[in-house]
C-alpha cells in the first residue's frame, strides 16, 4: 500500500487547472500548423493565425487562452495499491480546482443548481470519473471543458440494423449542427457501445488521446480518418467563416454492448482543447 495525502492531490489539480488554461498542449499547436498548410480560405487562414498568436500570448503573459475557463472534467486512474490519506478524494480534487481557479484568475462558470442558476463562485465542483486500476500510482487527467461546445454534444441510440452507416451519419450531423457556435475547428470525441452513460463517458475520455496520433485499433483508425475527411468537406471552416478546417481530429472509443443496442455519444470540443495530466 502506498499512501498519498490529499494535499498532494489538491496541489496537483491546482497546478493542472492553472496550466491547462494558459498553455495549450503541443498536440493542439501542431494541429493548427498542419491545418494552415491545407486551409484554402483566406478568412480561415486568418483565424488559424490569430489562434496561434492567442496561444503564444496566453502562455507568455499567463492570460487564459479563452474567457470560458470551463467545467473541470477530471478522469482519475486510482491504483488499487494506493491509499488516499487525510480526507476524501473528491474533496481533494475540488479543493485543487478552488485554489487553481482563484490563484489563476480563472472564471467561475459553475452554478449550484441547473434550476436556481446561482454561481458557486469558485468553479467547483468538478465532474469526476474514477477508474480503479492495478497500479501503485494515482493518475489525474483534467480538461477545462468549454460550455459553447459542450452544449452541442449529442447522444443517440441506434439500432444494430442501422449499423455503422448510421453511426457515421450521426457523427457528421453533429458537426453540422455544432457549426460556428462550438468554435471550430473542432475536435470530436466519440463513444460507441456500452450503455447510455458508458458511451458518454467514453466520448469524453477519448479526447485525452494525443491529437493527430493514430487510433491503436486499425479499423477505428480508418473510420476516424474517413470521418475527419467528410467533416472537413462540409465547408464550415475555422469559426464557421467558410473553409476546409472544420475539425482537427475525431477520436473514437468503443465498448462491448447489448445485442439490442448501438448507443453513440459525441462530445464536441472546441479548438481551445485544454487538457493536462499528472501522475502521483
Amino acid at each position, binding site marked *: 500500500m502506498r499512501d498519498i495525502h490529499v494535499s498532494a492531490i489538491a496541489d496537483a489539480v491546482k497546478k493542472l487547472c492553472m496550466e491547462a488554461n494558459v498553455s495549450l498542449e503541443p498536440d493542439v499547436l501542431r494541429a493548427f500548423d498542419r491545418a494552415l498548410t491545407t486551409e*484554402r*480560405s483566406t*478568412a480561415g487562414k486568418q*483565424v488559424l493565425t*490569430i*489562434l496561434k*498568436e*492567442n496561444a503564444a*500570448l*496566453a502562455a507568455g*503573459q*499567463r*492570460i*487564459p*487562452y*479563452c*474567457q*470560458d*475557463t470551463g467545467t473541470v472534467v477530471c478522469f482519475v486512474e486510482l491504483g488499487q495499491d494506493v491509499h488516499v490519506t487525510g480526507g476524501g478524494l473528491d474533496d481533494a480534487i475540488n479543493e485543487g480546482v478552488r485554489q487553481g481557479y482563484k490563484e489563476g*484568475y*480563472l*472564471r*467561475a*462558470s459553475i452554478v449550484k443548481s441547473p434550476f436556481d*442558476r446561482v*454561481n458557486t*463562485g469558485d468553479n467547483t465542483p468538478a465532474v469526476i470519473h474514477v477508474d480503479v486500476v492495478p497500479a501503485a500510482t494515482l493518475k489525474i487527467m483534467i480538461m477545462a471543458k*468549454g*460550455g*459553447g461546445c459542450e*452544449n452541442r454534444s449529442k447522444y443517440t441510440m441506434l439500432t444494430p440494423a442501422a449499423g455503422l452507416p448510421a453511426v457515421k451519419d450521426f457523427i*457528421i450531423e453533429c458537426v453540422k449542427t455544432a*457549426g*460556428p*457556435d462550438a*468554435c471550430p475547428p473542432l475536435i470530436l470525441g466519440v463513444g460507441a457501445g456500452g450503455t447510455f452513460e458508458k458511451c458518454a463517458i467514453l466520448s469524453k475520455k477519448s479526447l485525452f488521446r494525443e491529437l493527430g496520433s493514430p487510433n491503436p485499433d486499425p479499423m477505428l483508425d480508418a473510420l476516424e480518418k474517413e470521418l475527419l475527411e*467528410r467533416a472537413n*468537406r*462540409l*465547408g*464550415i*471552416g475555422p*469559426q*464557421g*467563416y*467558410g*473553409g*476546409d478546417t472544420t475539425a482537427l481530429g475525431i477520436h473514437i472509443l468503443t465498448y462491448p454492448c447489448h445485442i439490442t443496442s448501438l448507443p453513440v455519444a459525441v462530445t464536441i470540443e*472546441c*479548438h*481551445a482543447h485544454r487538457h493536462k495530466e499528472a501522475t502521483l
Partner: protein
Amino acid sequence: MSVTVGADGIKDVTTPLSDADVESLKAGDRVRISGVMYTARDAAHDRLFPLSEKGERLPIDVKGHIIYYTGPTPAQPGQVVGAIGPTTASRMDKFTPALLKLGLKGTMGKGYRGQPVKDALRQYKAVYFGAIGGAGAVLSRHVKKLEIVAYEDLGTEAIRRLEVDKFPAIVLNDCHGGDLYQDGQKQFAREG
C-alpha cells in the same frame, strides 16, 4: 460616429453608430472597433428584457451602441481585464429584437442568429459582428478601460462598460440581409 476604410482594406468603426454607419457595413467586412461597448450575456439580458418590455429605463443607454456577449475572466493585478472572447449569440436571440428597437446598433458574439434577429437587423438598421471565439487573450489587448455599470452581483455576467481600441471583428449579418456564414460556407462545401 464613423466608418472609414483603412489602407489595408479593414474598416475602422468608431462608436456610437448612426444608421448611415450601419448601412455602410456589409457581411464579410473585417472591422476594427474603437470607442465604447457594453458587455451583457444571459443573466444580464434576463434582467434587461422585462424592463424593455415594460418601457422602463435601462441601466445603460443602448442607443447607437454595441452589446458584446462576453463574460471575461478576472483581471490580474495591473491588467484591465483577463480573457474576453465572445460567447454564443443565439442564447440572446429571445431578447435582441426588443433592444434593437430601442436603438441598439450592434451586437457582437459568435454563431448563427435566428431569423427574427436577422429580420430585426433589417427593420431597425443594426449589425451583428463576430469576434473570434476562443481568442480571449488576443482580444483582451484591445480593451483599454473597463467599468462595471450594472448588476455587479452577477459576477462575470455583470454589465461592463468597455473602452476598446481597434478591437478586431468581422461583420456576420448586416442590415441588408447579408450573411457571412451562409456565403462563406457555400464556397467551401463539398458535401451536403
